[in-house]
Structures are given as structure tokens and as C-alpha cells.
């Protein structure tokens, strides 16, 4: 699956990267990324996840081919 991150998450991960781990849900992905970079955990725990411009919940089932966007808390305006 392809992962894309924004804003403060770019301090912890590459802006876009491929992940080949066997993960079944968004919750698994969140945990996996926390293990890859524990310093990112407080931010990851507050992020929303989106697949094809739609927000998805922690229970969303991954096929492994998605483009997943990780959205930190907004700070527009």
C-alpha cells in the first residue's frame, strides 16, 4: 500500500512511501506506524485516515493496494 502524509507527520515519515507489511485494518496501520516511529505516536493517535478522498474508520479493511492518506488535525484559517 502507498502511504501519504502531510504537515507535521513529514517530520517523522517520508512524504510518500510504500509499505509492504501485512496489515488488515487502519487500526493495524496506525499501530504499525507507531512502532516504526514511536515519536510520531501522539500525532498518529489524533490523525484521520482517508482512502480515495473518503475518510475511513479504524475498522476499515485493507486490501494492500490502497493509497492511504494520513490527515493530522487541521490548522487552516
Amino acid at each position, binding site marked *: 500500500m502507498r502511504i501519504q502524509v502531510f504537515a507535521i507527520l513529514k517530520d517523522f515519515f517520508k512524504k510518500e512511501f510504500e509499505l509492504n507489511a501485512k496489515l488488515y485494518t487502519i487500526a493495524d496501520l496506525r499501530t504499525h506506524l507507531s512502532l516504526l516511529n514511536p515519536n510520531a505516536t501522539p500525532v498518529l493517535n489524533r490523525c484521520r485516515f482517508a482512502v480515495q478522498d473518503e475518510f475511513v474508520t479504524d475498522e476499515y479493511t485493507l486490501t494492500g493496494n490502497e493509497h492511504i492518506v494520513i490527515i493530522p488535525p487541521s490548522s487552516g*484559517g
Partner: protein
Amino acid sequence: MDFITKKEIDLVALLQKSHCPSAGAIVLFSGEVRNHNVGKSVRYLEYEAHASLAAKMIAEILLAARNRWSLSIAHAQHRIGKVKVTESAVVVITASVHRGEAYASNRYIIDRIKHEVPIWKCEHFADGSKEWGGNCNCDKETGDVNKHIYEFESV
């Protein structure tokens, strides 16, 4: 009007296009870059967005505002990239028969944009430091990243 733009927002031009014979009230809100934050001097802000999702969400928010109030006009545009002090980072324009609906809907739209839409600001300070800041932190109170405490609900 593009919802997300890299170009400088021309407030005068936008206002000029917003006159409407049926509207007795037009409210234009401009969120502008100020030269200070958290006691530090700010040089400029840099905005980043998930552009396609942000545009889609702004369109949905504008539609929700139109469904909630009777509006002749409901526009919003957010700038991305480097935005200098005194420049507009976001503009919301609403027009309605009377001012009450124009004010209320304008506040609703800007509140929802600030809390929900995937746009982020990075503050660049005069001392050379930078920081991703001003994040929505409603979840610390609501316990849910999708539940927000809006200003428009408290007025």
C-alpha cells in the same frame, strides 16, 4: 472560484463579484496572517493542503450552509503556499436578504473549514524557527477527532 488556490486572494475583486440584487447583506470574512503568535514574531505562514479532499470538503460545507440558511451567495477560498503578513489566507463570503443569516452562515463556514478541512499552517518565526501550529484540538475535550466544538454553536 477555486476553493484552494496558490495565488494571492484578491478580496476587492471577490467582493465586487458578490453583489446580488436580492441580497441586502454581504459578509466577507478574511482570515489574515498576523505578525505575532504565542509571544513570537511571525515572518510568514506556509499553508499545505490535501487539495482534492480539501476542495471537496469546502464544497460540502458550502452546500450545508446553503441548506441551513437562505443564501444568495456562499463562497470560500483558502490559499496554500507562502502567505505574508497582512495577506489573506482564507476568505468566506456570504450574502442573504438580511444580515443575520449572512453573519451566522459565514461563521459556520469558517468554523467548519478551520476544524475539519485538511489544511495546515506552518508558522515561520523571525528567529528562524518554524512550527506546525494552531491545530484543532477539540478531540482532547470530545474524545473524538470527528467531533468539534464550534464557535458558531456558542453564539
